[in-house]
């Protein structure tokens, strides 16, 4: 187990290094020279050559790219992503301010998707070809086909415009969380429902389930005690991964609902080409995603010994 954990952690570090190169490249390729962008924004007029020279020295962009990369990476490792070009804040402060809001939204969305997806999946598997099974199949199809912004507007229309039951945009109370969280949850819930269904069906066909039935265990006991426990392992894995993903930023949903999280910030940063902020967001999102992924894998390996054995062989 320990060897497996070390191997996995090493690979996460390697992947993060790769992501850091990718992210740094984004900044280099970004349109406009940093010194010029910063100066013309603060001066309101084209800067002189001397001012440009000075700003380049200050930003460090007069040094070779390799040097710049390592100094940027050194900062990033210590949690310093540099200054935003326009917002007069440090990137990490801007992200830290918004991270808890994105986390609240992501966790609410992920929790909801489990609460909706798993029971539907189990029922669809135990009552195969029932009305519920067909409805869930169609629901999953729609879940994979409707754009999240469209779902968002339909929900807004029904709950906020028609019934005036919930606030639409912004942030503040728990009620503000409902619509964005539901929007976020529906897609993953559809995937989880289908996944749970097929996992449960597969397990119900296993020998040990037949044995349990043969010795006269009640259907409910077989389902909950034997089948569900095993079926849920892959489901929980996928759910964990989607949490990591949602934490990385729910760009569209935050944008639609004017939810002041990291995704919303990243979209505005792209619009005004504030690349340090974009870089910080991409790197942070990837790091969160990789770490959550690592945790999911490690817990998976604890639950299922086959994983770590296979890991050793590979």
């Amino acid at each position: 187990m320990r060897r497996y954990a070390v191997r996995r952690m090493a690979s996460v570090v390697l992947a993060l290094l790769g992501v850091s190169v990718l992210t740094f490249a984004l900044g280099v390729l970004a349109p406009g020279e940093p010194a010029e962008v910063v100066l013309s924004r603060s001066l309101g007029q084209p800067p002189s050559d001397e001012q440009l020279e000075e700003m380049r020295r200050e930003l460090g962009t007069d040094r070779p790219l390799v040097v710049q990369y390592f100094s940027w990476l050194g900062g990033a490792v210590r949690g310093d992503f540099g200054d935003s070009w326009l917002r007069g804040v440090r990137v990490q402060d801007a992200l830290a301010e918004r991270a808890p809001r994105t986390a609240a939204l992501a966790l609410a969305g992920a929790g909801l998707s489990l609460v909706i997806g798993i029971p539907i999946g189990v029922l669809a598997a135990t009552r195969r070809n029932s009305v519920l099974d067909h409805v869930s199949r169609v629901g999953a199809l729609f879940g994979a086909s409707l754009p999240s912004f469209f779902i968002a507007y339909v929900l807004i229309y029904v709950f906020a415009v028609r019934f005036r039951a919930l606030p639409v945009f912004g942030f503040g109370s728990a009620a503000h969380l409902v619509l964005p969280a539901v929007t976020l949850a529906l897609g993953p819930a559809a995937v989880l429902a289908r996944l749970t269904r097929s996992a449960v069906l597969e397990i119900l066909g296993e020998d040990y389930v037949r044995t349990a039935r043969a010795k006269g265990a009640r259907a409910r006991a077989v389902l909950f005690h034997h089948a569900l426990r095993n079926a849920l392992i892959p489901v929980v894995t996928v759910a964990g991964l989607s949490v990591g993903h949602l934490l990385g930023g729910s760009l569209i949903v935050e944008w639609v609902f004017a939810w002041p999280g990291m995704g919303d910030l990243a979209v505005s940063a792209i619009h005004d080409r504030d690349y340090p902020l974009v870089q910080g967001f991409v790197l942070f999102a990837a790091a969160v995603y990789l770490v959550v992924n690592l945790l999911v894998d490690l817990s998976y390996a604890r639950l299922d010994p086959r994983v770590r054995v296979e890991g050793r062989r590979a």
Partner: protein
Amino acid sequence: MSTAAQEIAAWTAPSFGALRRLLRDPGARVGLVLVTLFLGLAVLGPIIAPQDPLEVTVERLEGPSARHLLGTDGLGRDVLSRILTGARLSLGTALLASVLVTAIGVVVGTLAGFYGGLLDRLLMRVVDVVLAVPGLALALAVTGLFDQSLTAVMLGLVTIWWAGYARVVRGLVLSIRERQFVEAARSAGVTESRIMLRHVLPNAVSPVIVLATLEIGQLILAVSGLTFLGLGAPPPTPEWGAMLNESRIYFLSDPHVVFIPGLTISLAVLGFNLLGDGIRDALDPHQAVPSRRQLARLRMLGRSRPASAAAGPPAVTGTRPSPDRAAG
């Protein structure tokens, strides 16, 4: 390697039998009708549009009427004409992206799977890195590097999307090269490159086509997601996602300006998803298997749990979680 790759490698080649199965499946029939309709619109849309999609009039925010079948938007432009003209932009961007992504994925996946060794490890490392970043965030950042255009959107999506294909194709190639006819060819003295081109690749064609069909819907979602966020299609471009973005401010008073483009995108995606599911089922030799199971497996293989790998790639819908959904 993975069972999923073996399973899809076992899919039968396209045949009349498969076509008959496809046409018997009601879902696939609906998908076929929708896809034909939308492809027709992509070709003919700009020609049959009844009015100039860019013409601004004083008849603002009107509901559907005989003159404007789908009403008008905030600038008094005819919504139907904009939808029809936009079909070519929205679908064309997604289709072109799909072609590029498939091409890159096949080349990279084949090289990695067939030659193995250092090249394989190197390429798969890159794949892991790309898949480690939340898709839409990276696509957004890359799209922002270029001038506002749909080409930029396409490049942004290609940057993130090829990696999942490469991983699936690699799995396919690995499983095909273990089959007996490859061994037979090798023992007959056929050169490695010839084996790859004449024996391995042709057998990967049909699963790759299925994969590409299944992914077009997700690409349409991703394109409209990015343009909805205000990238790639500056006003007054009648691209569907951009139309939605431009009309957001009128939503509370006149919801139809948001619902019509939203519904159009949904129907297009639904059509491609239904057709993709249908083609997959029709080519699948194990018809008894619950129909979505393989897709679930494919997803697991494709991005959610690399068999031996490092950075686990994203999960959720589509092979790449549609960035729209993954991050959205």
